[in-house]
């Protein structure tokens, strides 16, 4: 299945591995930050509701 990359196998593999790793890191960072901020907002709203009703 793996194509024969000939003399440039290292360069092509390196470009794909580094690019996919960089894209994955960026997507993970955006996703993790999104979850954290969403949780923080929910916590803050709960705390404020408790205060206003208590």
């Amino acid at each position, binding site marked *: *299945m793996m*194509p*024969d*990359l*000939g*003399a*440039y*196998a290292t*360069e*092509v593999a*390196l*470009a*794909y591995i*580094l*690019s996919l790793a*960089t*894209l994955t890191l*960026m*997507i993970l*960072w*955006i*996703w993790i*930050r*999104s979850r954290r*901020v*969403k949780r*923080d*907002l929910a916590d*803050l*709203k709960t705390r*404020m509701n408790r*205060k206003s009703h208590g």
Partner: protein
Amino acid sequence: MASLWEYANPVKFMKVSRWLTPVTALLAAATVGVGLIWGFFFTPDDFRQGSTVKIMFLHVPAALMAINAWAMMLVTSLIWLIRRHHVSALAAKAAGPIGATMTLIALFTGAIWGQPMWGTWWVWDPRLTSFLILFLFYLGYIALWSAIEDPDTAADLTSVLCLVGSVFAVLSRYAAIFWNQGLHQGASLSLAPGTRMDWAYKAPLYISMTGFGLLFLALVLAGTRTEIRNRRIKALMIRERANA
């Protein structure tokens, strides 16, 4: 017909982007996957460049999005400066790190491709240099957002920086034409008559370019949702402190 400006309302934006983000993300995953798998596994070696031609399916879409991300930031920054819509400023903020990542990918895939083809990782060629400057502008843009406490002042100053940086975004796109020199080739994809690239390469390249565009859109939508929530947190904290 609904006006485009309706989506400048954070509530409306959150409502629409709630379903639009996962749909765009799924489409992006499918098209990037098809484009890269086709490009890596099922394209023939180039008669001159050998298998390094496969780097094109990453390098060209990343470079395209590096410039287009800045163009999108320019438009949203102008909307902020002229109409003061917060969502547009937050969308520009969300696009910054994504554009910087695309520029970084374009730079290092270019270096990896250039080494065996040109015999060097880097030259101070007009297009390479303008891309490096664009990357530095992205870093400056992200740093400026982080450095200023007041979000409206940060949006104002980053918008001005975006206007200045647009010169380099344009130069990055047209450098190879403006200065007809350097190692970087001119455009391989063009509307002008004549075949510059065979469809064996062009088809997966177009799919990969579409995929990177959709990926950018999905990530900007997700990032803008986070920025809107972040702004809401700050507003609620100010209200909480005022009531204490």
